[in-house]
């Protein structure tokens, strides 16, 4: 789900609070509620009610037929002792590495090199073409990417043939079928899928940076690395926050690539919470248990997003010198 949530929206600029509204003005504003009505109704029907429904179902046992049976917190107790549940969250940590940490760091480096070195010392078209190459996987529906990579990494797939061709045939392997290599292989695919997003966002962000800062630093004799650390990184921090947040949420929710590549296998080596929940809902028909998994995942996402937004607000306040 890499392409989703890719708009780097900066939060609304803090505007000075208007003077307390007069009664007349408040009355005028009340009419605006009418415009919120359709959206609010839809929101309650499609998001609010199902969310409450899932929360309720997580406290029951239910196969989807008949009436749910209330069991209190049983599902959650069972979760704590479920090895698959813990394995799925361990794998999520690796997904965070593959979808957040590596792409953000590599993306920063690539964007800086593309913008600063290649964009300036060669034709801008060169930088644009290279950027497009990095971005291309983001255009591909992730499931299609998963299917193609599934074939490439098959025992008789293109990757093993490539190893043969360069004389490394001894390394031939069933990359996705071996519990030892499946997770690293999936991670490599996710880096490939994800990397274009930070590259594009950071390159756009760099255009915002005042070139005079760089010129001044250059006059002072700062080398590229100095300038990268002293100017580039602090200047594009808002974008870095947005990229890190959206990629983190995407990594916590990752489903399509896992479905297409491994279905969580072999032996749960690549299982993730969202696939685990899907499987529990629709293959094992344990709706209550699946709801408990989903609820835990939801809570984690809400907490992580909250921490991010709080950190961002704090760093912005610090910048303004409060």
């Amino acid at each position, binding site marked *: 789900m890499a392409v989703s949530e890719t708009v780097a929206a900066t939060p609304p600029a803090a505007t000075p609070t208007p003077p307390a509204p007069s009664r007349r003005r408040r009355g005028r504003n009340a009419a*605006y509620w009418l415009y919120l009505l359709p959206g609010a109704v839809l929101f309650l029907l499609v998001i609010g009610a199902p969310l409450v429904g899932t929360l309720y179902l997580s406290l029951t046992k239910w196969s989807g037929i008949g009436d749910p049976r209330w069991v209190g917190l049983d599902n959650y107790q069972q979760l704590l002792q479920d090895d698959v549940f813990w394995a799925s969250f361990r794998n999520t940590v690796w997904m965070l590495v593959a979808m957040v940490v590596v792409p953000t760091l590599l993306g920063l480096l690539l964007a800086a090199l593309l913008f600063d070195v290649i964009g300036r010392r060669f034709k801008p078209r060169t930088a644009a073409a290279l950027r497009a190459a990095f971005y291309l996987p983001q255009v591909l529906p992730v499931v299609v990417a998963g299917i193609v990579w599934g074939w490439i990494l098959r025992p008789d797939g*293109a990757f093993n043939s490539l190893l043969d061709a360069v004389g490394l045939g001894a390394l031939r392997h069933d990359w996705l079928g071996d519990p030892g290599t499946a997770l690293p292989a999936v991670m490599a695919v996710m880096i490939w899928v994800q990397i274009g997003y930070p590259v594009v966002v950071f390159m756009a962000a760099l255009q915002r940076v005042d070139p005079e800062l760089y010129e001044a630093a250059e006059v002072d004799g700062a080398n590229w690395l100095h300038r990268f650390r002293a100017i580039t990184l602090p200047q594009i921090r808002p974008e870095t926050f947005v990229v890190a947040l959206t990629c983190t949420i995407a990594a916590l929710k990752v489903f399509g690539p896992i*479905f297409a590549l491994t279905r969580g296998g072999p032996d749960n080596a690549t299982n993730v919470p969202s696939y685990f929940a899907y499987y529990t809902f629709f293959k094992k028909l344990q709706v209550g248990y699946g709801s408990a998994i989903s609820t835990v995942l939801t809570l984690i996402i809400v907490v992580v997003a909250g921490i991010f937004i709080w950190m961002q607000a704090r760093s912005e306040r610090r910048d303004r010198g409060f």
Partner: protein
Amino acid sequence: MAVTLTPSTAPVTPARPVRDRHHRGVSRWVVLTLVTLGALVMLVPFAFMLLNAFKSPGDYSSGGPLSWPTEFYTKGLRTYWTEVNFPLKFWNSAVIAGSVAVLGVAVSLLNAYALGIGRVRGRLWIVGLFLLANMLPQEALIYPLYYVAKQVGLYNTQLSVIIIFTVIQSAFGTYLLASVMGTFPRSLLEAAALDGAGKWTVLWRVVFPNLRPTLAVLLIFFFIWTWNEFLIPLVMLIDNQTQTIPVALASLQGDRLMDAPTTNAGALISLVPAILFFLIFQRTLARGITAGAEK
């Protein structure tokens, strides 16, 4: 595409003049070579796809994935096209993504009008709620949605998917547009109000035309995101008549029909629409962004 849609406050500075005072003859070439190598690695899977999409199964089994095809084999492509009924799947994807894009933008616009310009009370909380809704894992909604859709006869209809994604996408759109409208010039609104324009007129005659570039970008994003969505269509759409391209391709995975050439051919034609949108919309996107920045 990832872009900053909110009008940037930073001054638009002209590109820095080329100054070769510090030209690093060698190192810049090293950088170019390394980055180009990285870009080529990114493209390798696409090359594999192209190489094997037009290769006969005989060729594939004798020569392997890396061999050059001895003939231009299109049966894999045709098998996929007819067996999957690709035109129908394309139409399904287009109907769903197109409807969601239009409806999602409309709902976002109305919501954001109340929040960003109407500044109704508690708007920060409401915007936060919308933002949070966009981040929720779809697993937290899917079972009740699936169950209710079955009860009311919306299961296995495109309408169910359209309604769900209209809300999910507009949650993000509301967040974004509310922040854009928060910076809308008050003088324009006041001038319109002095002329006696009502809220509805102001929305369509003043706000809408000014936001058109941002709305266009949002429309495109909604379209592409919905086009690529997987979990909800997978659960909601179960037969050949209703499925979208990603779901159809995934449900064929592991099928005997899907030998290597057919898999690659299938992936290739599923990729073509995405690349076409990207190329067509890229100009709109670029225009939308600059138009936003000029304000």
